[in-house]
């Protein structure tokens, strides 16, 4: 990597296990899962009826009074993002008045945001009452359209998390929204790191947000047939690399990191939580792990370390049958069975575009606190997963480096190497 060193100095997280890191961390060390039957709407009849939901979230708690009106323009994941950004700035003890707004950037991972169906009811009623499965577009255009609130579309655009955060905190530097599904927020972190290295900014908020726990998204996820159907025991549903895994559990939330040049962090007297020493991205064309391995090797090379120097690999670990196998095969190419592999999704499911920064935060905490939580629900390693999976019990940390990976089911892979 270029001569500038890039560090993480703050973390803000809105997760199904809690909205502050201490709560999340102790829940994980206690082996607690946030996956349970969905409560926010009636899921009767669906093949999967559980997820890791965030209870009692209220965006108003995280936004200054003068800006609360803007929450109405934000769908749920955008509110998570705004809240996590606020928490990250607090955690990083950032005095915004001392930041140069033009050197303050935002990088966010985000995905499709589902429309809230009640907002479309009036328009639907006046235009979908004739032929089954058909909308009378003339009626929609003439009468329906006007029954939807004017700013409707803005509430759901994937670049809005980054836009609202830039407005709330006067971040006039580079502003990007990476929309590469479950790899999005790790790619956003890689990009922010590269921009800091080229001296295109001094200070970034980097995050990801997602919520698919709503009727429309859940139907779509059920159609994709990648969800676990273990409705009788949701807490045990997501089982990374376990022989009895049967699919993903959905989660939701947002995690935002404060990322800056070491020079900038030192100047403002910030506490350094971890250093980003390498990153990589590659495409896994045959879904056999070769591309994932290349992404990891690129990141390790940039860090200038060998696989043996890693304390652990923080895996993507969907708990999905096909993906866990090719992920493990890819990781095995890089670390063999020498390095413990940890996966977080047993605790809070797949947080989608938020999963990268959320899960990476656990390695930051682990390296600092000297202990890593175990891989929840991992009981018997699948023979198709030729890696050393860290079991359920916590494990003392022995080395200063961690490798975090993430990918999409189509093979877009990302990797980050962290140093304590």
């Amino acid at each position: 990597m270029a001569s500038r060193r890039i560090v993480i100095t703050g973390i803000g997280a809105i997760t199904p296990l809690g909205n502050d890191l201490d709560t999340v961390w102790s829940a994980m060390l206690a082996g607690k899962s946030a996956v349970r039957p969905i409560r926010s709407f009636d899921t009767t009849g669906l093949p999967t009826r559980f997820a890791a939901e965030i209870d009692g979230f209220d965006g108003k708690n995280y936004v200054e009074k003068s800006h609360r009106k803007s929450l109405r323009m934000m769908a749920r994941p955008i509110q998570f993002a705004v809240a996590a950004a606020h928490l990250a700035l607090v955690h990083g003890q950032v005095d915004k008045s001392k930041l140069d707004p033009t050197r303050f950037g935002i990088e966010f991972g985000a995905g499709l945001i589902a429309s809230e169906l009640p907002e479309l009811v009036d328009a639907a009623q006046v235009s979908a009452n004739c032929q089954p499965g058909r909308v009378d577009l003339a009626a929609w255009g003439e009468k329906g359209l006007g029954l939807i609130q004017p700013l409707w579309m803005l509430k759901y655009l994937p670049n809005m998390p980054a836009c609202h955060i830039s407005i709330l905190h006067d971040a006039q530097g580079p502003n990007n929204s990476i929309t590469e599904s479950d790899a999005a927020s790790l790619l956003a972190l890689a990009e922010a790191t590269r921009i800091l290295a080229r001296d295109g900014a001094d200070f970034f908020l980097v995050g990801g947000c997602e919520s698919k726990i709503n009727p429309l998204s859940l139907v779509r996820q059920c159609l994709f047939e990648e969800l676990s159907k273990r409705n009788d025991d949701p807490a045990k549903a997501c089982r990374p690399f376990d022989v009895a895994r049967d699919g993903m559990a959905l989660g939701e939330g947002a995690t935002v990191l404060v990322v800056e040049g070491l020079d900038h962090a030192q100047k403002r007297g910030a506490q350094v939580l971890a250093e980003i020493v390498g990153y990589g991205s590659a495409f896994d064309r045959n879904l056999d792990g070769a591309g994932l391995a290349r992404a990891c090797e690129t990141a390790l090379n940039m860090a200038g370390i060998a696989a043996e120097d890693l304390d652990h690999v923080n895996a993507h670990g969907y708990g999905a049958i096909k993906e866990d196998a090719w992920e493990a095969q890819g990781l095995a190419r890089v670390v063999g069975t020498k390095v413990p592999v940890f996966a977080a999704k047993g605790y809070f499911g797949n947080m989608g575009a938020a999963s990268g920064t959320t899960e990476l935060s656990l390695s930051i905490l682990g390296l600092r606190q000297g202990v890593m939580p175990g891989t929840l629900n991992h009981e018997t390693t699948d023979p198709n997963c030729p890696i050393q999976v860290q079991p359920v019990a916590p494990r003392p940390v022995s080395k200063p480096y961690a490798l975090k990976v993430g990918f999409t089911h189509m093979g877009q892979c990302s990797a980050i190497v962290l140093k304590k």
Partner: protein
Amino acid sequence: MRRRVVITGMGAITPVGHSVKAMMDAQLAGTSGVGPITHFDASKFPTTFASQVKDFELARYVAGAERWANAGLNSRFAAAAAQQALADAGLLDDGKIDRSRFGVYLGSGEGVQDFHNMIWQIAQTYRPDKREIDYPAFMAGALEVFHPGREAEQELHTTAAHLASHFHLDGPNFTCLTACAASSQAIGEAVDMIRQGEADLMLAGGAHSMIHPFGVTGFNLLTALSTRNSEPQRASRPFDLHRDGFVLGEGAGMLVLEDFDSARRRGATIYAEITGYGTTADAFRVTDSHEEGRGAIACIKQALVDSGLSVEQIDYINAHGTSTQVNDQVETLAIKRVFGEQAYKIPISSSKSMLGHLIAAAGVVELITCVETLHRGWLPPTINYETPDPECDLDYVPNQARQHKVRHALSNSFGFGGQNISLIVSKV
């Protein structure tokens, strides 16, 4: 010294032509791509017209088009434009270069939602007595009628994954969606990835189609679209006093970006060098750009500094020029603030006057237009420019293409929500 990044392949599927050459010929002839919407019945929408891609059949462009059987127009346009760009660069075959050093960075949009089934299900399962939707009924119905393959193809990462998979682009893979700035931002960051040695080649660009019921609904609600339904081809009139909004377009553009040394080594045709990149945010409002063009000014300046060029060296500006009141006025102001007196001497035109607004794909197609001006020595006009706006008093190349020598050209893209991108291309 940083690595130089050049363009060695280009492809475009647009409302005015299905190749770079056809698109540029049409622009120089002042051809509008706008007409009544035929993708769906928009006859009673506030806006009834758009700039559609015509007679497009993916199988005419790529072998194995079945891969895109469930994909939306966005991914289909992307595939055809990528095929053209890679063929143009001589890089369709695996042998010539290390494919693991060849990545993808798209600024591309979403697929098309199943509007009819979704709205029908909402209407059927709404219980007026309880004033709520019966969600189990909605979901049971949706599970029946939604098509799993088509639903999957709506996701934002699918377009880039298909390209990487089909064309064996095994390097870094990124997708961004920053509204109207997306493909320009993708190109800018892809350039930086090559500069910093993370890849030797990148397929960069974008694809989008929002000419569907939800898209037109959303933009109509924001009153962002022109409603000049009586004269669709005269609706997109950037910088004209009587402009009343943008015209929705669709399409894709792709570039092969390559390390200069790599391009030279393999004897590739070099179309241009990307010499400048600026990226900023307005941090102002979700709905409007900053009144004084704060972010846009900083962005253009950043691109100039990055290129090492002076304001006198910029020979042409392809404007964002959407034909909305605010954009055209603020963009004019920003150009004047950056270029000073020189602003009056630089010809500026808006391709959107002819192509409409390709949203995420707009930037790349407009950058390709800039590259073409380097070689053709002709500037595309801003058509429908009839009545000067006192707030917009620069040279917008009104209505007629103009012969003009171009060595360095600037392309601006400003996204809804405040992302600003400027790119500079230079003759090599």
